[in-house]
């Protein structure tokens, strides 16, 4: 029997070794992802009631702070600006965890980052307060301008500095007051959460970076840039025919210009007038799938942007248009594929193309910044709560090289023409160089409606200087509200943002 007993011993030893290996996995290797799991409220529970730093705007306005209270918890998180910064700060709830910067900068705010722990270790005589304040790159002036201009229309305004990626305004409507979920009255917090979860427009699901929409004609700048980069056109050649519609390859279906208008001309003119016919043909018959997919992905499509507000959605450009069928189009330089008619529609930002307002702002930023997209971020500085010493400064960091500098410059010039003599004249400012592209995106019209999303993407800078501001404005379709044109509806919001920034 001794042999079996020894074998049993070895078997049990192996089983315990398995447990040891598993523990290593759970407690060390997977610990970070388990800790980051949205369902994991442990950190928040730990930090709830503890000292916690303040979140300030770039101009020093507190937007999230902890107040000392009586009761079960020592402190309560409050948001003095109400709903205005909710999409940035997120909430800090006992039961529902933290979102937004409250989540991504939780360690710093609560004093648990590596540097702060190191400091507290040697801080024998201090009061043990190692919490840090977080200063945003968002200014109260820009954020208020965004909220005032958008009003209570569903939509989003994202504005950033294209040179650094610093976001200066990040606002969506509908929004919510984070204090209602962060309150220490847990019953009230629960009720508020239930109400917000069911509220129309999903206020907790920030429109600006967590929801995607067809970008419509704003996507034409990507199609134009792809055509320039691949050398199939120049801004002035060829001249596309003036026409009312374009017959989609391999179909009898025609694609109309906006409002049924006659539209055409060279690339620059076509962009200024936003001719669907030109860009549909350009994408489907001049470029073909691979160049379009490549340019869209270089701009960040099919990837979630690195952003310090968690849970950004991925913007999508279809990655498969079917097999090649040979050159059957009359003017085509590119291979016609099974999905060429879809590609034609994707080239004007319809079909399955979807983008977040943040992504479209990054498109404008990339073009304005010589083709390079910087990582967007809303946090600029982390400082010690007690003495204000800088713990971390967020430096600009490139995310993507979307375009070659000369292609970016040419595309930017064409966008300036859109403002001077196209669909975005509302943005013309005498002392500034402003470039833009409007978009009027059809939503699913299967129910017979013709409701549209109104878009504008734009950049602006002093005349002759580099662009200092890039932005995207989205006003969502109102069910049954009919057509709302990008230039007319979203344009004034973009104009208000540019005025707020440069005045």
């Amino acid at each position, binding site marked *: 029997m001794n042999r079996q*007993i020894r074998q049993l011993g070895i078997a049990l030893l192996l089983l*315990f070794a398995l447990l040891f290996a598993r*523990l290593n996995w759970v407690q060390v290797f997977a610990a970070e992802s388990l800790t980051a799991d949205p369902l994991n409220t442990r950190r928040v529970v730990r930090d709830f009631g503890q000292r916690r730093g303040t979140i300030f705007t770039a101009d020093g306005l507190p937007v999230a702070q902890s107040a000392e209270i009586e009761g079960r918890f020592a402190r309560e998180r409050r948001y003095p600006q109400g709903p205005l910064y909710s999409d940035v700060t997120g909430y800090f709830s006992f039961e529902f965890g933290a979102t937004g910067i409250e989540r991504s900068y939780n360690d710093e705010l609560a004093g648990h980052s590596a540097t702060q722990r190191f400091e507290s270790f040697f801080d024998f005589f201090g009061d043990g307060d190692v919490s840090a304040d977080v200063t945003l790159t968002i200014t109260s002036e820009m954020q208020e301008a965004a909220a005032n201009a958008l009003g209570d229309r569903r939509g989003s305004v994202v504005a950033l500095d294209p040179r650094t990626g610093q976001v200066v305004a990040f606002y969506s409507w509908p929004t919510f007051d984070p204090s209602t979920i962060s309150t220490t009255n847990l019953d009230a917090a629960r009720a508020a959460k239930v109400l917000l979860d069911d509220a129309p427009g999903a206020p907790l699901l920030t429109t600006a970076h967590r929801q995607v929409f067809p970008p419509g004609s704003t996507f034409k700048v990507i199609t134009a840039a792809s055509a320039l980069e691949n050398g199939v056109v120049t801004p002035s050649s060829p001249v596309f025919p003036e026409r009312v519609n374009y017959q989609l390859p391999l179909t009898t279906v025609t694609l109309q210009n906006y409002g049924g208008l006659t539209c055409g001309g060279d690339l620059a003119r076509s962009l200024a007038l936003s001719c669907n016919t030109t860009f549909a043909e350009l994408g489907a018959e001049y470029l073909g799938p691979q160049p379009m997919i490549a340019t869209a992905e270089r701009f960040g499509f099919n990837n979630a942007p690195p952003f310090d507000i968690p849970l950004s959605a991925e913007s999508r450009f279809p990655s498969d248009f079917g097999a090649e069928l040979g050159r059957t189009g009359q003017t085509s330089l590119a291979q016609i594929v099974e999905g060429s008619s879809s590609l034609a529609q994707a080239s004007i930002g319809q079909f399955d193309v979807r983008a977040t307002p943040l992504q479209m702002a990054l498109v404008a930023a990339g073009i304005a910044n010589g083709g390079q997209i910087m990582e967007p971020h809303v946090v600029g500085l982390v400082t010690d709560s007690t003495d204000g010493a800088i713990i971390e400064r967020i430096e600009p960091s490139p995310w993507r090289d979307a375009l070659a500098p000369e292609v970016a410059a040419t595309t930017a010039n064409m966008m300036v023409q859109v403002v001077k003599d196209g669909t975005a004249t509302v943005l013309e400012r005498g002392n500034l160089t402003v470039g833009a592209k409007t978009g009027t995106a059809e939503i699913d019209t299967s129910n017979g409606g013709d409701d549209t999303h109104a878009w504008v993407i734009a950049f602006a800078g002093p005349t002759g200087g580099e662009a200092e501001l890039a932005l995207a404005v989205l006003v969502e379709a109102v069910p049954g509200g009919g057509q709302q044109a990008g230039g007319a509806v979203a344009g004034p919001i973009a104009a208000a943002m540019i005025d707020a920034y440069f005045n």
Partner: protein
Amino acid sequence: MKAFFVGRHRRNGELILIILGGLVTTGAYVLASLGRLSSIPANVGPFLGVVLGLFFVAHVATRFLAPEADGLLLPLAGLLNGLGYVFIARLNDELAGQQALWTFLGVGLYVATLLVVRRSTELERYRYTLLLIGLGLLVLPLSPVGQTINGSRIWVRIGPVNFQPGEFAKVALAIFFASYLIDKRELFRAGTWRLGPLRLPEPKHAAPVLLAWGVSLIVMISQKDLGTSLLFFMLFLIMLWVATERLAYLLSGLALFMVGAYVAWTQFDHVQTRVDGWLNPWADPRGGGFQVVEAQFGLASGGITGTGPGRGYPQRVPAAETDFIFATVGEELGLLGATALLMAFVLMIGSGLRAALGARRPFSKLLATGLTGLLGVQAFIIIAGVTRVLPLTGVTLPFVSYGGSSLLANYAILALLVRISDEQIDRAADAPTPTRRRPKVAA
């Protein structure tokens, strides 16, 4: 007094280890209080005194009653029991008071068992009595005194006390299996009755074993106690395998188990819930997967060094004091503390199997194997459940979890192992010769 000196080298090592374990326990107790309330507990002196005093009593009893016994078993049990107490106290004061009482009774039972069972082979005489007692204890919860707690009908309430008779049944049945299998092992080994490729013993000889095993499984299934039925099954398989030295029994038994588990999975809701909660607890994180998901979060928040006793949030895991105590330890003592606990079990298994290897009587050998297997398999299945290696089956972590029946039964097992390890030395020789001396176990 001769016995007092015979095993003194082992007993002295044991005493040192008990003192070390007491200091570790008291240290953890102080840290837990500091972590939770930022103050050193007022009763730390008396606490250390009681912990040391209690196990000193057990030690002295061992010195007289089992002087040549393994010196590692008792200190390990003391350490596990002590650390378990600290974490129970940190979670729930009321349960801690009860656990302290159960510990006293457990140590008392340990001494009593050593006193009553002077030779392990004496137990053989009572094998059918023990079989009846074991089966009776198993059926007891189904009688009117039974109680259903958390969906399992495995409790009995007598006066103010709830207890799980199944915990004692496993000891009784282990003794019966050991005795019966040793007696009939030639018949089991020879196997004259053919069933397909297997040669099995005559049904007549296998009957009592199958009866014991079948009844325990049926009872367990009707009580919806998956963990304990798995434990009984493994106990039976291990003992059958070791007794007959035929691997075929183990392998075909495991195969049978797989089939049974699959059938149970297709037939029983509560089994499906457990399996779903194991494969993908995130599918229903607020329902069936809640306990396991929260345990993973707890373990992850502990990291390598832990949050420190009293500084984590183990109470977020339901049953943190009982089945999930390992998650509590992992959270607050980290990978280091959890590994130390695993090592303690490995050492305990090692000591138990060493006693089995050294035992001269086949019955004692098999009994020690079975009892050690019980401890090891039970610790494994609950830790595996907590860490999501296996589906969760609720059993206690021996010596660590809160639970009176479990603690008492484990102290009885401990006493039997100590008894068997004591019998390795040939009593005919008055004193051990130097060559028989083993290196000190503390090394």
